[in-house]
């Protein structure tokens, strides 16, 4: 059932992209290649079969988690050129894979594949996806991909995106598994500073001078008092 759903979503996403490329949906302007590749066409059917198999492979238990079967399946998904389709497939694979992320040798590749999707305005949609994705393992993969983005490609984030990502990290942190918590704490330290990261780790709640902002405020206050006293 899940596979039917993902293919349905994938086709719907594909259709949206197609409509965007041909806003009027005029069949007279469709090329032969596009007709072959459109949903229901021979190429698309073959692709869907291959991708269906890839997700099935990843959804099964494997003795060798880094074996060629799983790796080949993951590569099939990662090789998808169309970003919306790739995103849909990777999330479905993430959701259906029973392997614990910290024991999964392919987890990092999937996270990298997701992180590569986040470019420009899609970053905003991706941050929303951290909130909307209800399948825990898929949500965790998205979170990990944004932690990676924040750590490795900070300069690609606009100031509003940086702020929005900080807010999402803060709001999600308490609900995440240990692995993603650690990743989010590191990412928050990079884009939001030490205080947010320290507070996420439970520090800074006990006394006045544990947080940098409070120490800085106190220092400024003392400076002012010193000047006033002179």
């Amino acid at each position, binding site marked *: 059932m899940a596979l039917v759903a993902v293919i349905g979503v994938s086709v719907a996403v594909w259709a*949206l*992209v197609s*409509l*965007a490329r041909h*806003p*009027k*949906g005029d069949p007279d302007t469709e090329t032969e290649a596009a007709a072959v590749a459109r949903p229901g066409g021979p190429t698309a059917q073959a692709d869907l079969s291959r991708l269906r198999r890839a997700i099935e492979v990843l959804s099964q238990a494997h003795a060798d988690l880094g074996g060629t079967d799983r790796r080949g399946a993951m590569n099939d998904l990662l090789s998808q050129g169309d970003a919306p389709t790739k995103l849909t497939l990777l999330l479905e694979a993430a959701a259906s894979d029973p392997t614990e992320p910290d024991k999964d040798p392919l987890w990092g590749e999937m996270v990298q594949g997701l992180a590569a999707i986040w470019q420009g*305005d899609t970053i905003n*949609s991706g941050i*929303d996806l951290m*909130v*909307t994705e209800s399948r825990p393992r898929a949500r965790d993969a998205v979170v990990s991909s944004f932690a990676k983005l924040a750590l490795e490609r900070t300069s690609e984030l606009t*100031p*509003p995106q940086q*702020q*929005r990502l*900080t*807010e*999402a990290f*803060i*709001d999600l*942190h*308490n609900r995440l598994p240990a692995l993603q918590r650690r990743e989010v704490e590191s990412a928050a330290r990079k884009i*939001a*500073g030490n*205080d*947010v990261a320290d*507070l*996420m780790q*439970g520090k*800074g*709640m006990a*006394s*006045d001078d544990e*947080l*940098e*902002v*409070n120490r800085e*405020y*106190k220092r400024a206050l003392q400076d002012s008092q010193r000047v006033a006293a002179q």
Partner: protein
Amino acid sequence: MKLRVYRIAVALGVATIAAAGTAQAQMRDRLEKISGIAVGDGIQKNIGGQIGTGRGNVQTPDSSIFIIQRDPFRSVRRGRQLFQRKFLPTQGFSGRDRAGNIATDASIGAGVVDSCAGCHGRPRGSAGFGGDVFTRPDSRDAPHLFGLGLQEMLGDEITADLRAIRAQALAAAQSSGTPQTRTLTSKGISYGSITANPNGTFVTTGVVGVNTDLRVRPFFAQGGTISIREFLVGAFNAEMGIQSDDADLRNAAINRQRITTPAGMVLDGALDAIEGPPVTGNNGLDPDGDGVSNELPISLVDHEEFYLLNYFKPATSISPDRAADVNAGRTIFNNVGCASCHIASLTINVDRRVADVETVFSDFNPGSPTTSGNPLNRLFATATAKIVTIDDPGSFPVLKRPALQSFVVNNFFADLKRHDLGNNFAERNFDGTLQRQFITEPLWGVATTAPYGHDGRSQTLEEVIIRHGGEAQAARDSFVAQSRANKNLVLAFLTSLVLFPPDDTASNTANINPGAANFPQAGHGAIALTPLFNNPADLE
């Protein structure tokens, strides 16, 4: 038929215009017997012009259905102008007879005001907040209406989820022949549990935060009303003496029909207790005896509902020099437990609005007028269309319908549940009883809306936090235990959640123009809808 899909977000990107007009909290129309209003100011259409050709349909020019579906931004603007309109006695505004039992009819204590903006008019020109009204012995504080449509949609979708779970429990009970218990969860929020019996009855003692009918009622502090349409028709009557024989509410409430309003809200009188209109066939068309009948025609209700559905959500104002404090404060807010009820983000599956407006801090920068805030409030709003257009047969303008995509409501901070907040929050009713359960107040806009609490009896944010008890006792105690410095960080975070005056806020539909004479009194930018009309020269 040609269907054009606007993918994800299509920025409106309309050139700045000068015809957006300025705004006041309440307005007269220029065609009334007053003078001195400059062209471009005030309401450009008289009440008859706003009524148009009635409700009509998509083939009836100048009807509310026609405008909502073919020129939706005009409908939003018209609803806004109605919201600001100072109604006259000749239009049905009246101080109605306030005799009666206030314990059974709280509206007797409502104020007498000549416009919606009289109670919901701050910040200037917005559907914001206002003063206290005497509908309870200790008053009720008029809330702001920013983001009202998002609240309606969230409440409605949660209701549908909870009822679907109830139906699944019943089906399972009937097929198994044994009682079946299901947890009631929607959008990550728990509403307890329900048990279905094979005979079709339910055990609802486990249901929490919502009535046993599982209908979330997002409006009024106690969680009393389902929809914007009921809310506005009721307020027009109770506060302004302007009465509507609204056919949609009549059919849903009295005839127990399932209706869909022009704004897309489904009201099903067979499932829910819908609030009926004050005027029906039973009490005539002038029950307040002021000599004016049909005081609020259905087309005006349609535009007003559509306006409030689409009304802008609040802003976040975080200047770079405050970001560290605000983000630390937000983290402490989460750590002390406030976020267990004040949930930051919730997702709407099907967004019925035609646009979203995202408003954030942007310092005044004359060198970048297309993204700069103005010196008045240092905010910049980005409007994004969320429509599909359908070119139907005939010569009329294309249909512009909501794209019905999902939408993440960020910085909302509520769970749409009722909670007992302890003795300090309890509210006296006129009959001596106490109201103890209140629906979680969304914190968006909270920086701008002092005083606080359903009754406005707490003057500052810190006072209203400390006032919490009951289910919020642990979070409240955890906040109180924080150092003075950490409390200040939480308050810094809360003061980043602001409302704004739309006509004084620069946006991508009307940028700042620092070169304008008398800038920023002129050329300060606005969230302008007029450029989005099919005919921008026809002003509202």
